[in-house]
């Protein structure tokens, strides 16, 4: 059997894996984005307590392996009576882990927006929230879009670790096919190609989005 035949023979395995990988990556991206935004706000708070909590969150999640975080959430929390399914644990781990990286990216973007922008908005009677939403965030997100894209791609790739706790994602399915066929290389090459198609498509889409935004205003 050549690699194409292997792919075709076990297409339902790979198809199933794609679904779970995409599902987890999508949850990780969306929740990580929202959570990251919140954490970046904590990090920039006027008060020390939220700032401290934000820093702990970021430093802990950045400074420990994601696999360890995954195991803590999936196996460790059981001792507190919190039993999560493998998918739930995977989704939570990917979300909180990416939120830490995205929070730092957002913070850089927000602090990089010229102070005069906030002053102009405030001088027009806009409150803090409104200023953030209409003036600061659109400019901040735009300037850190490449870094956000990077993080999204990382999430897709890193989602493969959820196979460790039995989520039937691409990585898991490759191993399943190996078990059936005794072929170790072909299934891995197949999923490598699939991962690449996903990340490459995303990177092209983000590039398109970036160009569309930057046609608006070149400062």
């Amino acid at each position: 059997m050549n690699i194409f035949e292997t792919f075709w023979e076990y297409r339902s395995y790979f198809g199933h894996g794609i679904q779970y990988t995409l599902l987890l990556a999508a949850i990780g991206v969306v929740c990580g984005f929202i959570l990251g935004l919140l954490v970046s706000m904590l990090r920039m708070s006027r008060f020390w307590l939220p700032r401290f909590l934000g820093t702990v969150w970021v430093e802990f999640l950045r400074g420990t392996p994601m696999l360890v975080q995954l195991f803590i959430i999936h196996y460790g929390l059981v001792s507190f009576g919190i039993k999560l399914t493998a998918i739930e644990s995977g989704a939570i781990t990917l979300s909180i882990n990416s939120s830490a990286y995205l929070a730092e990216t957002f913070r850089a973007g927000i602090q990089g927006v010229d102070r005069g922008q906030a002053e102009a908005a405030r001088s027009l009677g806009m409150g803090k929230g409104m200023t953030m939403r209409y003036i600061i965030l659109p400019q901040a997100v735009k300037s850190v879009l490449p870094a956000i894209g990077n993080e999204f791609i990382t999430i897709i790739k890193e989602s493969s670790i959820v196979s460790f706790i039995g989520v039937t994602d691409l990585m898991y399915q490759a191993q399943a096919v190996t078990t059936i066929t005794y072929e170790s290389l072909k299934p891995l090459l197949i999923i490598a190609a699939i991962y690449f198609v996903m990340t490459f498509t995303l990177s092209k889409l983000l590039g398109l989005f970036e160009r569309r935004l930057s046609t608006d205003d070149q400062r």
Partner: protein
Amino acid sequence: MINVKDLHKSFGKLNILKGVNIEIAKGEVVVVIGPSGSGKSTFLRCLNMLETPTSGEIAFEGDSITDKKHNINLTREKMGMVFQQFNLFPHKTVLQNIMLAPVKVKKVPQAEAEKIALDLLQTVGLADKKDAYPSQLSGGQKQRIAIARALAMQPHVMLFDEPTSALDPEMVGEVLEVMKKLAEGGMTMVIVTHEMGFAREVGDRIVFMDDGQIMEEGTPSQVFGNPKNSRTKDFLSKVL
């Protein structure tokens, strides 16, 4: 209209304002002059609380705006401000720049806000630029848009923080022209500027600041023609 009592502002150990007292009447055009570092910009930025005063009181239309319980956003709706660096919103078109605050803050209906914005663009002579982005405008055009943006909130007073200092010399005139029209229309204005000719022509009152205090004030002919304070004399001899 604006009443400032014993205003102090320090940044750490640096005392910028050392007790400023001034009363500004409705319809008055007050021009603040003085050497760099004299605290004139800080004074102006305290008027709408972009800088929080260290002590002292500022009252606007009878309300103490330095009071911690006072909602400063409501006051800022009535105080337009124009900055040295324009600070237009680069991700929005000219029209969106002008309409944003009226629509979001004052809840003016979209159509009405657009009408106000187009009228203002006419006034500042830039009606054809309504769909342009700030990056496509010259400095003078940006500043005129910034003035229109502030005016769209229909403020009771306009604060100008060195509005022509960042402009190429050939663009200063067009901005001053717009400001002059505004003054003639009866707008209350507080202007920090280095344009002495403009100060003399448009100002009802000239305020000379140095070392965080008001050293001298009076009509343009008093201050420019017959300065009393030695520091005023010294300053004017350098700039005139």
